[in-house]
């Protein structure tokens, strides 16, 4: 009872006893059955002994050892803390508890492989994990949460770590595949057996079969032109709609809204025919022109931003004799840096990843493909086995500059996004 009355600076001892209890339960659970194998029950220490004495060795044994050691260590630390609690001790305990949880969690993913490698059983499923394992796992988790409360650490870290792993998993997979030496779509393992740069080289050397360099260049040209032209159009449109009042302004905005409610590619076939009529079909020019033609539809966000710039600035400039055009160029644009970046980034990304229109426009003309169409073409079921690693390499090459750009300019993007809600 005396423990609850103690106070230690920097710690919150309200949950201390519960944490100790959970930590001890986890340690006790180590002696309970961990797996059921052919009617036989084994605890974690028992499994370690059996695996060490067995003829076949397995690389996974260090997971078992780690789980056992860290669970025991954190239980021991929790007992020491009962006697004398201090901030550094609590932090070490927390780290041990986190490691214990991580190792116990990894056991869930590795037990089957471990038993298989050791030649014990081949058809083990996680539903055969024993009650001792689940008790250890759950109480270790509870102990970690409670210890984090004692050290006043935000419990959100646990959630963020788990979510972060899930979110990065597919990305990690595609990066690993891009460097994978073994070709083919189907491989029975996550980490490649050999690493190579050939996938990247093949993309740029094998031009007759796979004109990736051409695709990349096509996309870059279109995206660069589009983002300049579209940005100018969007900024001009939203400036006029935000800062000036003229007959038909409301009507124009309503018409744009109504047009926007039709699914965009419903009319692609007609656009295609019109392009054919002016002789622009199957050319990159068509992508730029059509993109620019529809750009004004995306005026909302920047209009919302221009609305927030005080009107008094404009009025002062008008009194000084500036024309509207001068105000736009010399007053409004310099104030709208973040929205310019947002618009440029947005139109660059949109062109870069547009698939439907280019795929319809170019059909079989592979030399005009953009990366989106080309990479999709590579994952066709006829080609996926041959080109999967190249596809992964291409995906990395395409995504990397954008990711860097995006992370670098994230701030502007956030401002634009929150602007879109207000606007």
């Amino acid at each position, binding site marked *: 009872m005396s423990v609850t009355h103690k106070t230690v600076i920097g710690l919150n001892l309200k949950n201390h006893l519960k944490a100790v209890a959970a930590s001890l339960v986890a340690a006790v659970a180590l002696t309970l059955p961990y797996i059921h194998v052919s009617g036989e029950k084994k605890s974690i220490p028992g499994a370690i002994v059996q695996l060490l004495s067995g003829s076949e060795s397995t690389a996974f044994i260090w997971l078992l050892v780690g789980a056992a050691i860290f669970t025991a260590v954190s239980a021991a630390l929790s007992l020491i803390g009962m006697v004398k609690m201090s901030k550094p001790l609590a932090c070490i305990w927390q780290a041990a508890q986190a490691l214990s949880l991580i190792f116990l969690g990894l056991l869930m993913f590795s037990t089957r492989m471990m038993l298989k490698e050791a030649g014990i059983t081949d058809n083990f499923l996680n539903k055969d994990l024993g009650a001792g394992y689940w008790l250890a796992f759950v109480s270790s988790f509870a102990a970690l949460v409670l210890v984090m409360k004692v050290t006043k650490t935000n419990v959100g870290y646990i959630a963020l770590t788990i*979510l972060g792993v899930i979110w990065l998993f597919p990305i990690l997979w595609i990066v690993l595949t891009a460097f994978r030496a073994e070709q083919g779509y189907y491989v029975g393992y996550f980490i490649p057996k050999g690493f190579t740069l050939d996938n990247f080289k093949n993309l740029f050397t094998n031009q007759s079969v796979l004109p990736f360099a051409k695709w990349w260049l096509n996309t870059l040209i279109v995206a660069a032109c589009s983002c300049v032209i579209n940005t100018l159009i969007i900024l001009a449109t939203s400036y006029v709609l935000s800062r000036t009042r003229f007959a038909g302004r409301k009507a124009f905005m309503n018409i744009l809204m109504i047009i926007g409610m039709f699914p965009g590619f419903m*009319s692609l076939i007609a656009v295609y025919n019109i392009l054919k009529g002016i002789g622009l079909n199957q050319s990159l020019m068509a992508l730029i022109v059509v993109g620019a033609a529809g750009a004004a539809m995306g005026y909302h966000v920047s209009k919302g931003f221009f609305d927030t710039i005080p009107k008094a600035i404009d009025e002062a400039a008008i009194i000084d004799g500036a024309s509207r055009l001068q105000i736009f160029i010399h007053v409004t644009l310099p104030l709208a840096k973040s929205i310019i970046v947002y618009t440029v980034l947005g139109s660059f990304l949109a062109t870069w990843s547009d*698939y439907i229109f280019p795929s319809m426009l170019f059909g079989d003309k592979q030399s005009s493909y953009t990366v989106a169409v080309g990479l999709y073409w590579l994952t066709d079921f006829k080609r996926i086995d041959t080109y999967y690693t190249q596809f992964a390499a291409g995906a990395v090459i395409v995504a990397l500059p954008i990711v860097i750009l995006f992370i670098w300019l994230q701030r502007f993007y956030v401002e634009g996004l929150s602007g879109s809600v207000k606007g």
Partner: protein
Amino acid sequence: MKAATTKRNILTTFTKGDIFSKLSYILFGLSNIRNGQVLKGLIFMALEALYLVFMILTGGHNLAMMRTLGTSTQGMTFNESLGIYEVSQGDNSMLILLSGVVTLVITGFFLALLLFSVYSGEAARQAKELGRRPNTFLEDIKSLANENIHFLFLSVPVLGLSIFTVMPLIYMILMAFTNYDQDHQPPGNLFTWVGLKNFFTLLSGGDRLAATFWPVLGWTLIWGFAATFSCYFGGMILAMIINSKGIKHKKFWRTIFVITMAIPAFISLRVVSTMLGERGIFNVLLQQWGFTDHALPFLSNITWARVSVILVNFWIGVPVTMLMVSGILMNIPGELYESAKIDGAGPFTMFRKITFPYMWFVTTPYIISNLISNFNNFNPIYFLTGGEPLTLDYYKGAGKTDLLVTWLYKLTKDSNDYNLAATIGIIIFVISAIFTLVSFSRSNAMKNEEGFQ
């Protein structure tokens, strides 16, 4: 003086105007010439003449042909002078419809010119009556950089939208009232007007089409709501965790999640799609890890596939909401939380009573526009499942995860049933319009309230 300053609209300009004003309805620019703007008036006249010439030469014919969409089918005719059969060029219904629409849009511009010239002439007349000198042509050009900047800035967008958005849209809308399906493909065959028949077959016909349409619509609605709200709440919770006190390196955590957002959707979706395949890495790992002893049908079983697309969309959509919500969360006054804390509210109560109502209030328009864009969310479905698993219950090509938009796309691209595609497009428009109207009435209602303070 007083009479001159009163504003005249397009009707009163005619009824109250002098003979020149009246005549300028027929001869554009006459009023401008009369009032000293000779060059401007002549330009109006020239444009009018150009339109009339166009209408006489081709436009009138184009419009007349639209009535039937062509009568002579392409076929073999006997050429008596040569004594052989040769292919006779028939009418091409598609081109007839297209040129008809072009003519309609040009006529629309002509009507705009009519309005513009009348207003312009009236302005010149009023200026003269007031004793001011009407603008010279050079001054008119200069005004483009100033009070008439909207003409300068909007000319390109209006032109672009007219040619590449409005014109194709009218064309496709008209197509919903024809029988331009796979059996009526020009140039070999003609298609013609059928009125509302497509709508009836799609909505209430007893055959496959109606049996496809309603389930696809149902799934589209389920998908829209599930995708929108899962991402909304997921993103909100994630943003709250990252923004909560005591989390260090907020930027680092945010960046981890933003990476998925920065990768172009077609790449991440294609990658995930290959990962979810029967021999994909997810199935390999799950079997290796001992979670299952057979491959799971992530994309091949109806229910699995539907859940998978919603989950993958969650993976892609949560970071967007997270970024957006982060900005708003910082705007919630901190005193609210402090006073709630003093009153003894726990974190859950604070979320329920402060954070959520605030967010809901600020983001309602965003949610509704997000809902509409999710109904039309082509990418996740097309790149992940391509609408599959296919089913025999549906009209050919449509699958169990197909949304209305992806079905529309398949109808245009694979089976050439343009009339059905156009009909579906119009139905999608109606659905979007309904949701937008609801959104408008709601946001108006909220503007009237004091709202969340």
